[in-house]
């Protein structure tokens, strides 16, 4: 039986501490949408996205109302277009971006990610064409997001790609100059990109993924910060435990929403991504969490250690399919009190 304290805690997390579902992202495989004819390929892409995602926004809104948890964004991610477009003989892949943009507009999502290439080990013809098209694609579309993976732990860093992306970023900024360089806000350069990231602008539907999937991103730095305020000055074990328990609650909520969306849309549930990344809302920053843990000011000595500890506490939430967005290697530290 629920007790009133627990109910009020949840209500407070949502209304005052900025707890929300940051995004429901539907990942769609476009691996079967290739064609030598670019128009055919774009049509296949558009149709497939419409078929799977036509009810995504409405479902998100229904769940939001029934459960009382804000679902801020509904988004789509697709197979990296450099793979899908490669069979065409066109030099420019802007038409693909336009097809994605149309589908995003019709489905009502606010972003569609996947105008992407994976070049950490080398380029293919499709990769070259995709990357060359990025500045134009981002200038001519509103909702398309792009990403390029230029490095991985296994493969190393593709320095040619790093050099090229520097130029691509500048070109993208120049082409979107009238919008204050907005194109660059829709472009990500990655090392070790993940295949099922639900957050933009770096979301894409990796090649190891299935046909279609629902991934949910939950945002909770404000909630963790408020929980830590209650245990200020306490022993480090208690601080870690508080973070763990709070992360558990946030992730469970994300899992509930993901499973419900998956059921209603008839699409398998993928992952819940717990992000402590900050939002512009006041009090919703991971920097405040570190300061609450005892760092005098975020950036002072001990900041990296505190971040590693935070990561460690969150990662020990033992659930099916949770994942932390911050990719730090975590070692365990022995601290009694961070504030001393």
């Amino acid at each position: 039986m629920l007790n009133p304290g627990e109910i009020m805690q949840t209500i407070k997390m949502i209304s005052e501490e900025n707890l929300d579902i940051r995004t429901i992202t539907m990942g769609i495989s476009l691996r079967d949408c290739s064609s030598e004819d670019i128009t055919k390929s774009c049509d296949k892409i558009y149709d497939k996205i419409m078929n799977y995602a036509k009810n995504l926004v409405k479902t998100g809104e229904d769940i939001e109302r029934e459960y009382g948890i804000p679902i801020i964004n509904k988004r789509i991610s697709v197979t990296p277009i450099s793979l899908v477009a490669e069979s065409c003989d066109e030099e420019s892949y802007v038409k693909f971006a336009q097809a994605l943009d149309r589908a995003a507009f019709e489905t009502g999502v606010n972003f569609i990610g996947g105008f992407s290439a994976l070049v950490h080990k080398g380029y293919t013809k499709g990769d070259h064409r995709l990357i060359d098209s990025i500045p134009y694609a981002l200038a001519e579309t509103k909702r398309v997001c792009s990403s390029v993976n230029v490095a991985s732990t296994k493969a190393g860093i593709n320095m040619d790609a790093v050099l090229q992306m520097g130029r691509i970023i500048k070109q993208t900024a120049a082409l979107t100059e009238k919008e204050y360089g907005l194109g660059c806000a829709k472009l990500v350069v990655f090392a070790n990109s993940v295949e099922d990231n639900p957050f933009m602008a770096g979301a894409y539907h990796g090649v190891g993924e299935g046909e279609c999937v629902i991934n949910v991103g939950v945002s909770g730095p404000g909630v963790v910060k408020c929980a830590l305020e209650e245990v200020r000055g306490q022993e480090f074990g208690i601080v870690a435990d508080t973070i763990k328990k709070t992360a558990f609650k946030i992730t469970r909520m994300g899992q509930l929403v993901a499973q419900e969306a998956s059921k209603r849309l008839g699409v398998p549930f993928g992952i819940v991504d717990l992000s402590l990344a900050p939002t512009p809302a006041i009090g919703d920053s991971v920097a405040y969490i570190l300061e609450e843990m005892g760092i005098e000011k975020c950036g002072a000595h001990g900041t990296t250690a505190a971040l590693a500890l935070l990561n460690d506490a969150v990662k020990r939430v033992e659930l099916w399919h949770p994942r932390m967005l911050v990719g730090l290697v975590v070692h365990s530290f022995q601290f009694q009190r961070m504030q001393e």
Partner: protein
Amino acid sequence: MKAVITVIGSDKVGIIARVATLLADNGVNILDISQTTMQDIFTMIMLTDISENKLKFTELAYALDDLGIQMGLSIKAQHEDIFNSMHRI
């Protein structure tokens, strides 16, 4: 199917009566109530059975929200699973 209805706002005459009447009119059974008034702030949590609800859940939620606006209160109806998933394994 159960829903949790929370009412928060300045205390005044008729809150419980009007909320309970709206629920009764729509076939919603109140299973449990917890209510407290602290320094004129009224807080009430109701666990309800909405399986015989005459309206769609979202319509009930809107109706309660409207009542809240009329009375100057925040009235939210939420599926109980959101609380169960966060606080129970």
